């Protein structure tokens, strides 16, 4: 009996002590972790809406592929939207932020928020050479070409990593779709 009891009691004490410590650390870091995520999103939203003097998060109805939306305001007028969209890439979800101007009806920039693509290949979409192509793109379905994009709706893929480039472009198209279906009516 003693052989069973002593290990059981020791194990119980060790496990309880660990759980108490973890509970404490978890509740202490809950707020900073949420703040980190929020800050990262807001920085990206400001970057894709450079002409907005302030941004505000809006309530969002369920829409496939869209996670968050910010409106960009200038003197109380809605001048643009920053739309957070995602799409599955080569090795997981890619989250991006897309800025759309209400006035010019163009894309004002995109940023890659999170991705798990192959380092050195798919991950190159985080370079400006790639995402800069979306600057001033028209609000119509965009498509990826291998190289030599000439139409306004064509995007060059990067280092042949077409799956990643297509995924990013599809996510941008999702954001454009949200804007034309819902964003316009929020104005």
């Amino acid at each position: 009996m003693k052989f069973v009891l002593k290990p059981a009691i020791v194990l119980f004490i060790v496990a309880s002590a660990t759980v108490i410590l973890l509970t404490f650390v978890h509740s202490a870091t809950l707020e900073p972790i949420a703040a980190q995520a929020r800050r990262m999103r807001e920085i990206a939203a400001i970057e894709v809406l450079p002409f907005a003097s302030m941004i505000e998060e809006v309530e969002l109805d369920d829409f496939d592929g869209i996670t968050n939306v910010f409106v960009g305001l200038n003197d109380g007028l809605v001048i643009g939207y920053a739309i957070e969209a995602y799409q599955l890439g080569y090795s997981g979800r890619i989250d991006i932020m897309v800025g759309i101007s209400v006035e010019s009806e163009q894309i004002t920039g995109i940023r890659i928020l999170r991705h798990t693509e192959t380092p050195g290949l798919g991950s190159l979409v985080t370079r400006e050479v790639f995402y800069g192509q979306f600057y001033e793109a028209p609000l119509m379905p965009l498509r990826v070409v291998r190289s030599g994009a000439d139409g306004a709706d064509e995007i060059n893929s990067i280092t042949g990593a077409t799956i990643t480039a297509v995924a990013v472009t599809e996510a941008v198209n999702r954001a454009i779709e949200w804007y034309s279906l819902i964003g316009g009516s929020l104005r």
Partner: protein
Amino acid sequence: MNYFKLIKNGIVNQNPVFVQVMSLCPLLAVTTSAVNAITMGLATTAVLICACFAISAVRKVIPSEIRIVVSVIIVAGFVTILQLVMEAYLPPAINESLGIFIPLIVVNCILFARIESFASKNKPFASAVDALGMGLGFTLGLFVIGVIREFFGSGAVFGIELISDTNSHMVIMVLAPGAFFTLGALIMIIHSIRRRRGGVGV
């Protein structure tokens, strides 16, 4: 107990990466850049020190039948704390790229090697010093491999671009095979030097 000797033992004589060749999984996976390598190394060192100290402190009251279970609980606890703290206070980009390898420190074999062979037989302070030496040795190994891979693979060091022409980057160096090539070459160089000096190679 000579503490200086313990630290030197971890960094040089028994270096976990180049001599013991342990914990290759995180080693090969996260060394795509110098910053990732150092963060991973220091994270492992922190867990190693805390866990070795704690386990050494309770070593006399833990019945030997549940020794491993208790070690796993203590290590997992420290790893979870580390993960929460890193998520809360480090730049999100670093957390993203280290991803699954932070929780996987739980099954890091350097940890269990030090716990079983050192911390369960020595006093808490000596165990912590031994853990510090081993952790720094691991960090050094990660850092060297990280710098080499980042330079050849993405033409940068610490994220500062040195070669901007992407055509001259050896992409294979930041992919999995590059890690094996780098580690193999480094082990070869280090052991040929050790042999020449009259030491024992692997």
